[in-house]
C-alpha cells in the first residue's frame, strides 16, 4: 500500500550548501549573543540605570534583563535542534517499531519514542486509533500517549536554562518512568472494554503516506518554522513569568515559603498536583515563577510535581481523548498519572 511522495521540485546541491552555511552563521551568532547577555544585563542595570548592586530593584532588574534573553535564546536554539532530531521520526515509523513488542519492553520503547516522535494534542485521537487498530497493546499505547506531552520540549529547555542540566535530567527520567509504569498499570487493569466500541470496528483502508525522506534543506526549513511558531507562542509567557519571578527574587524574604512548600510539609506535593492539573500547559510561564519559589525555600520534589501536573494532564487533551475512551478509562488514566507524579514528588523531597 505504500506509494512514493511526489515532490514538486528536486533539491539542488547548491541550495543544500547554502542552507548549511546559513545554519552555521546562525549558530555562531547565537553563541556570540549568548555570551554577551550577562555583561549587557549588568551594564544596563548597574551602569546605565545606575542602580546599586544588592538593592531590591537592582537585583530584580538584573535578573530580568539576564534571564529573558537567555531563556529566549535557549528556546530558539534548542527547539531548532530538537525539531531536526524529530524529523527523523514519524508516527508511522514509531508504530512499525512498536508492532509485535511485548508489554514491559514495549512500554519502555513506547515511552522513549513518545519523546522523540513529533506529536500535537489534536493528533492524539488518530494516533490512538492507529496504534490500537494495528494491534499495539492498550498499555503500550498509553505509555506513548503519556510520555509525549509529559516530557515537553519547552519545559525541558527552560528547566535546563533556569535550574541546570541535573534538574532537566531528573525531569526527563521521571517523566519517562511515570509513562512506562502508568502504561504497565493500565495494561494490567485490562481496560480494553472501556475504549469506545467504534474504535475496535475500524479497519484501516491502507494507503498512508509512505515515509517521507526530507532533504536537509527541508529539515532546516521545517525546524526554522516550528522554532518561530513555538517562540512566538510562548515568549510573552516567558517574559511575564520571569517578571513575576524577578519580583519574588528581589522582594520576598528568603525561606518565606519553607513552611508551606518545603519538604517538611507532607501535604504540599498532592496540593501542588491538585493545583497543577487544571492549569493548562503554560510551562513557559510557570517555570520562572517556580524557580523563584524554590529560591525562597520550596522543595524540588514539590516544584517538579507541580510542573509535571501542569504539562502532562490538561483539560483540553482529556476532552479530546474522551472521543475514544469511556469515562472509566479516562478517570483511570488521570488517576494513575497523578499518583505517579505525587510519588515522584515525595521521592525527590526525600532524596534531595
Amino acid at each position: 500500500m505504500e506509494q512514493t511522495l511526489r515532490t514538486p521540485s528536486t533539491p539542488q546541491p547548491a541550495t543544500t550548501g547554502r542552507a548549511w552555511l546559513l545554519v552555521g552563521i546562525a549558530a555562531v551568532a547565537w553563541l556570540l549573543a549568548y555570551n554577551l547577555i550577562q555583561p549587557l544585563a549588568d551594564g544596563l542595570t548597574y551602569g546605565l540605570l545606575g542602580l546599586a548592586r544588592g538593592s531590591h530593584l537592582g537585583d530584580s532588574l538584573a535578573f530580568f534583563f539576564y534571564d529573558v534573553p537567555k531563556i529566549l535564546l535557549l528556546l530558539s536554539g534548542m527547539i531548532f535542534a530538537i525539531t531536526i532530531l524529530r524529523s527523523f521520526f514519524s508516527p508511522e515509523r514509531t508504530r512499525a517499531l512498536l508492532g509485535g513488542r511485548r508489554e514491559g519492553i514495549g512500554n519502555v520503547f513506547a515511552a522513549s519514542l513518545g519523546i522523540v516522535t513529533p506529536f500535537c494534542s489534536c493528533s492524539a485521537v488518530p494516533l490512538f486509533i492507529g496504534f490500537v487498530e494495528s494491534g499495539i497493546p492498550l498499555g503500550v499505547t498509553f505509555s506513548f500517549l503519556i510520555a509525549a506531552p509529559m516530557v515537553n520540549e519547552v519545559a525541558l529547555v527552560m528547566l535546563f536554562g533556569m535550574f541546570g542540566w541535573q534538574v532537566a535530567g531528573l525531569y526527563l527520567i521521571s517523566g519517562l518512568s511515570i509513562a512506562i509504569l502508568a502504561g504497565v498499570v493500565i495494561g494490567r487493569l485490562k481496560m480494553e472494554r472501556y475504549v469506545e466500541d467504534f474504535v475496535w470496528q475500524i479497519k484501516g483502508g491502507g494507503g498512508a503516506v509512505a515515509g517521507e525522506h526530507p532533504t536537509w534543506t527541508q529539515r532546516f526549513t521545517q525546524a526554522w518554522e516550528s522554532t518561530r511558531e513555538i517562540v512566538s507562542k510562548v515568549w510573552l509567557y516567558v517574559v511575564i513569568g520571569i517578571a513575576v519571578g524577578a519580583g519574588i527574587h528581589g522582594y520576598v524574604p528568603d525561606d518565606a515559603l519553607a513552611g508551606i512548600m518545603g519538604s517538611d510539609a507532607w501535604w504540599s506535593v498532592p496540593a501542588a498536583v491538585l493545583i497543577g492539573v487544571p492549569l493548562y500547559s503554560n510551562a513557559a510561564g510557570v517555570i520562572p515563577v517556580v524557580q523563584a519559589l524554590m529560591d525562597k525555600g520550596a522543595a524540588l520534589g514539590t516544584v517538579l510535581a507541580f510542573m509535571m501536573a501542569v504539562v502532562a494532564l490538561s483539560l483540553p487533551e482529556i476532552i479530546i481523548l474522551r472521543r475514544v475512551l469511556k469515562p472509566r478509562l479516562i478517570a483511570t488514566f488521570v488517576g494513575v498519572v497523578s499518583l505517579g507524579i505525587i510519588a515522584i514528588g515525595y521521592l525527590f523531597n526525600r532524596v534531595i
Partner: protein
Amino acid sequence: MLNIKVLGPGCANCKRLEAMVQKVVAERGLTAEIEKVTDYVQMMRWNLMKTPGLVVNDTLVVSGRVPNETEIAGWLQP
C-alpha cells in the same frame, strides 16, 4: 473534476491547510470539490495518524504538516 478532502478535527493547522488549498485552487482556476473530513472514523480510511491530512482524488498526499503552496499546486496538477 478534482476531489480534495482536508482531514482534521478543526485545529489551527487544519484550517490553515484548507485556506491554502482554496487559495491555490482559485489562483490556478481549477475546478475542484473541496470537502472537510472531521470524523475520525472516516479519516482512518487513509490510515491518517497525524493531522492535518490532504487527500486528492482518494489518495492521501501529505499528513502531519502544512505543506507550502508550490507543493499543493504540484499535487493538484492533472
